[in-house]
């Protein structure tokens, strides 16, 4: 079992700027853990704190139960994969991979052997003598992974390493990373601003915004039960409808909105009469369906995305509505300019305090 990583009330300030505020979470050993957030939310700062490049101004970091205070990146059982990959361009691939072993004084023959083993692991056999510049983006990615794994880290830290790849390759590398993580059992902490990447790959995801940890949970949990309005908006597409809480009953909150009463599952911190928002996913909205929670929208455009189409509309008060329509149902799709009615079931919507 590889090491767990525990952050206890970690805070980081750069001069007057507070980049990270009071963040605590525990990454279990062998877990694929993602930190998700828009750029500038402090996720890279957290990764650099775990790696040892930054000393947090508050709190502590424990890796495998051991306090990492005062230990540099070279002394921690972590290895980092940089956003730019940071391969050494003037060394052949095998020397890149064996660099960490070279630094540990491993003999050349053994380094060579280990490098070849790792090349096999990442399916790049026979590429040892190439220079990094001669490889494709995906191959460079794998070399970076092999180089990080060469030092047998307990925890692998990945700083958006897929962001430079095109979509197809990115999806392929996601699956590969995931498989590699399961095979090696190394704890992965993965930084990304791409929510679909985080949802697809991770065992658990931490969502951050403006230096504050919003929610930690399994992908489904974040998607279905967002704890904060930020998570509701950031993870996946959603429609937000403002109103006031009329009643809360059996975990279902009814919101009095401009479009009449609408109900959804009640989140934490709701009280009757308080301002609240109801969040409903595009795929929870059903065109022409009957039922209580109904919304009327004027359709502006329908974007065909392949497996589904997104109908963009305007509600009576001018706010926007997005509904997803499966491609198989496109024959029934509303026409542009027409008024269409959508309904959703209250279990598929969430009501959170306004904030």
């Amino acid at each position, binding site marked *: 079992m590889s090491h767990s990583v525990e952050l206890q009330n970690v805070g980081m300030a750069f001069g007057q700027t507070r980049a990270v505020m009071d963040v605590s979470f525990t990454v279990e050993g062998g877990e694929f853990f993602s930190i998700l957030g828009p750029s500038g939310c402090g996720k890279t700062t957290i990764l650099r704190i775990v790696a040892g490049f930054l000393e947090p101004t508050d709190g502590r970091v424990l890796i495998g139960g051991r306090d990492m205070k005062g230990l540099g990146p070279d002394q921690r059982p972590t290895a*980092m994969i940089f956003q730019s990959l940071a391969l050494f361009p003037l060394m052949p691939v095998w020397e890149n991979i064996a660099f960490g072993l070279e630094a540990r004084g491993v003999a050349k023959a053994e380094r060579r052997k280990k490098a070849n083993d790792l090349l096999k692991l990442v399916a790049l056999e026979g590429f040892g003598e190439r220079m990094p510049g001669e490889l494709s983006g995906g191959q460079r990615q794998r070399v970076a992974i092999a180089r990080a794994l060469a030092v047998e880290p307990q925890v692998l830290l990945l700083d958006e390493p897929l962001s430079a790849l095109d979509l197809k390759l990115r999806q392929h590398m996601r699956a590969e990373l995931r498989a590699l993580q399961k095979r090696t059992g190394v704890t992965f902490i993965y930084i990304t601003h791409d929510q679909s990447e985080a949802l697809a790959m991770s065992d658990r995801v931490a969502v951050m915004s403006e230096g504050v940890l919003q929610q930690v949970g399994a992908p489904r949990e974040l998607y279905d039960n967002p704890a904060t309005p930020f998570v509701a908006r950031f993870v996946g597409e959603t429609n937000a409808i403002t109103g006031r809480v009329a009643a809360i009953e059996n975990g279902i909150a009814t919101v009095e909105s401009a479009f009449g009463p609408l109900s959804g599952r009640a989140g934490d911190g709701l009280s009757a009469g308080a301002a609240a928002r109801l969040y409903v996913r595009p795929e929870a909205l059903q065109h022409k369906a009957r039922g209580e929670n109904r919304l009327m929208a004027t359709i502006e455009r329908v974007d065909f995305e392949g497996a589904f189409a997104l109908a963009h509309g305007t509600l009576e008060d001018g706010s926007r509505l997005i509904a997803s329509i499966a491609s198989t149902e496109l024959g029934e799709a509303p026409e542009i300019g027409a008024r269409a009615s959508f309904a959703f079931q209250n279990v598929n919507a969430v009501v959170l305090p306004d904030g």
Partner: protein
Amino acid sequence: MGELYKRFGGGLGTVFLALVAAWLAGMVLAPNVMMIDYALRPNLPPADIGGPRDVYSLSNVLYLANEGVHRAIFFKTVWASALVAFVTLMVCYPLAYWLAQNATPNQTAIAILALTIPFWINEVLRTLAWYILLAFRGPLNAALLALGVIDEPVRWYGDGGVLAGMTYAYILFMLFPIYNAIESLEKSQIEAARDLGASVWRTHWRVVIPHAKAGIATGCVFTFMLAAGSYVAPALLGAPGSRWFTEIIYNWFFEGGDWNRGAAYALVLLVLCLTVVLVTLKIARVNLTDVAK
């Protein structure tokens, strides 16, 4: 060249080309051809120039080969120049690294300004400042005596003085190429090396120095050439035991009145410098075009 014509048209393009050609011919080619011409001809009284004794030969060059003292000074100049380049590199590399990778923009600006200001003053005056600093009864000896580091004044003039003066004079020629090279090194490369457990030495040896190789080679080549061709520093800060080859050349021209032998000596120095430069670049596997950048 086609680009030049396309951009400026036939007339202006031709003017530019002609100006460059005139510059190269008049300022570079002609003096060197004249130097070679002088070097290969004997030193004759005006009446005999163009006469039967005015023939090309290698006798001026051979004179240097057979003259023990001049030969020794020649080789000493070569290795002392290499030493100047090496010492300057040792001084500049850490500074360049700090400026390029660690300093804040403000620190960089102040440091570069501080390094550049002395160069607003003429080289002779800067060397004269060292002449005063290093004087037998000068400030350096006074300070060291006061601190109790030395018991009696040291005679700095000589090899040590020349080395100090030249290192100081050529610092920017070494600093800027290395600074430019290291600045283009991505910070994450250094972090990656550190993250993988490399010591500071290994990070420099395997990552920073290979990346900065062209800059280092450029700086060394500049410094070596400037040192080998230097006149002021050895003349002011040297001692009779630390004569520089340029001083011998000077003497042939202005004391000995033998321009031909002076030209031959200068030619030998030029050829040697070029050889050293090309060999250095070959060893460092750097192209001449990289240096020109």
